[in-house]
């Protein structure tokens, strides 16, 4: 595959995602405004208004209706997109499960934000992580470039014939949605050949069927079993699509996880989202002092990359998992998945919970926790208050 140099732009996260969506050419959009996603909706409306994106923008009165309307359009054969955040994602939740259960190809961007109460418009991952059982593929970006890249990839993954699942692309509210960074965008023609028009239909209009009717137990469980298999199959497809994207963009896309200095590391920090960049800085500083530390960044959270996480971490002396979302009465959501991955392996796994409701986390916090871990002085769960 030919690598064509992209075009460098300065874009805030919301506009980078809107740009990727424009290039992916969805035919139907329905987005309800909510902070910190709203400026993406504004940009998409501008594209539609100027005729740069030939799509129908359905004006809806809620997030529930936003997903309900594009769900219908996607079943009818259209490529569709929506975006939301926080309370909006909660309000959309009933329809999320409908779309996941029916395996409708949809792409949704989630500008992650804390959930009420108390009220906050700032970033954490509680909204995104609380949707882990909705039968959606979930990916999360570290920076504006990755938010752009994952959005383009999401359309391909969602519509792949061996997958056919909705895909959610998470990126940190404000920290990425409103931050301007250097982004290299692909040429339209490159995106056109990467995401050709959707080939298949879920319904045959000459032979109408009902979608999502009542299912007797033996059908219900079989349909759910098929969804589980589709989710498992998607791992291979996602990796193939990442590799193909790497070829056309010239940018490394790693896999379901990204290993940064972690191959020979004795101690590894595991993270997801924008603060992975700050963890990277902490790891580099400790490496300069001779500590064998590394970073494992989770790019795809559903399906969870158990094999990769286990392979990278099984021989570690200690693992530190950063969580920006919490399952109350249980623990950090990511740390629990990492513990499951390491079942049967004798690796101590510690939890660092922070960044909730927009609380700033610095490389120094991560560095200190890693140092404490190496000295055997880190508690099993530490909250950065």
């Amino acid at each position: 595959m030919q690598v064509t140099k992209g075009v460098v732009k300065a874009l805030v996260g919301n506009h980078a995602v809107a740009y990727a969506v424009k290039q992916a050419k969805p035919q139907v959009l329905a987005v309800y405004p909510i902070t910190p996603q709203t400026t993406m909706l504004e940009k998409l409306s501008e594209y539609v208004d100027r005729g740069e994106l030939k799509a129908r923008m359905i004006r809806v009165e809620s997030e529930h209706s936003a997903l309900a309307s594009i769900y219908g359009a996607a079943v009818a054969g259209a490529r569709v997109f929506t975006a939301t955040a926080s309370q909006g994602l909660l309000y959309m939740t009933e329809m999320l499960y409908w779309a996941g259960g029916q395996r409708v190809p949809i792409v949704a961007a989630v500008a992650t934000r804390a959930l009420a109460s108390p009220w906050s418009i700032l970033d954490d991952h509680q909204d995104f992580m609380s949707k882990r059982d909705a039968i959606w593929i979930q990916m999360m970006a570290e920076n504006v470039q990755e938010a752009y890249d994952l959005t383009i990839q999401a359309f391909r993954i969602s519509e792949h014939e061996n997958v056919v699942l909705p895909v959610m692309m998470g990126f940190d509210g404000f920290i990425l949605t409103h931050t301007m960074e250097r982004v290299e965008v692909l040429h339209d023609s490159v995106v056109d050949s990467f995401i050709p028009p959707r080939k298949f239909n879920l319904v045959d209009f000459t032979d109408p069927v009902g979608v999502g009717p009542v299912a007797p137990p033996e059908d219900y469980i079989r349909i759910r079993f098929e969804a589980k298999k589709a989710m498992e199959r998607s791992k291979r497809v996602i990796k193939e699509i990442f590799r193909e994207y790497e070829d056309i963009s010239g940018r490394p896309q790693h896999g379901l996880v990204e290993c940064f200095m972690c191959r020979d590391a004795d101690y590894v920090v595991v993270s997801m989202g924008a603060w992975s960049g700050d963890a990277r800085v902490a790891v580099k500083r400790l490496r300069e002092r001779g500590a064998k530390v590394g970073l494992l960044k989770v790019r795809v959270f559903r399906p969870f990359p158990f094999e990769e996480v286990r392979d990278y971490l099984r021989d570690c002396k200690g693992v530190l998992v950063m969580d920006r979302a919490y399952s109350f009465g249980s623990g950090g959501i990511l740390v629990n998945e990492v513990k499951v991955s390491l079942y049967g392996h004798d690796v101590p796994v510690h939890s660092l919970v922070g960044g909730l409701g927009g609380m700033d986390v610095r490389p120094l916090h991560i560095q200190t926790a890693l140092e404490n871990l190496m000295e055997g002085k880190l508690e099993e769960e530490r909250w950065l208050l």
Partner: protein
Amino acid sequence: MIEISLKGRGGQGVVTAGEIMAKAAIVEGKYAQSIPFFGGERRGAPVSCEVRISDQPISLHRRVYNPDVVTVFDATLMDLLNPLTGIKEGGILLINTDNPRRYWNRTYYVDATGIARSLGLNIAGWAVVNTAMVGALSSVTKLVDIGTAEDVVKEEFPGKLGELNVEAMYLGFKEVRALD
């Protein structure tokens, strides 16, 4: 890597100033971030924005704690916010005022409000001082070339508004002074 903290009031164009700086740096082939901060923003309330400029890719997403440059769009914020908190030793303060005081050993000042008013750059009674401040920043820090900033401003504000803003930027560039 250079970190800049921009402090002003809603309506003065603080976030746009940060974006012009970041965009100009990116156009020049560098890496940059412009990070706005949101609370209960409205005209007159304190607003802040942070900018990073580097020759290398930037992986940080934390806030700026030790700025190399502090830019204050409204001198009344000096007592209200203590914008110099954490400024690096040898760092630069650039302030919009026609009556400078020695807030810091490296203080630069420019009457950006006077420049904006002279060109009629007002919105709802507020002098939009951002482009004059960007001009002054470019002059004092040399982080971005004034010509690149001009291209970015023309792209952001097409037509007559762009011309006025470019004029404000060059006036800021020329009129900024170091406090002896």
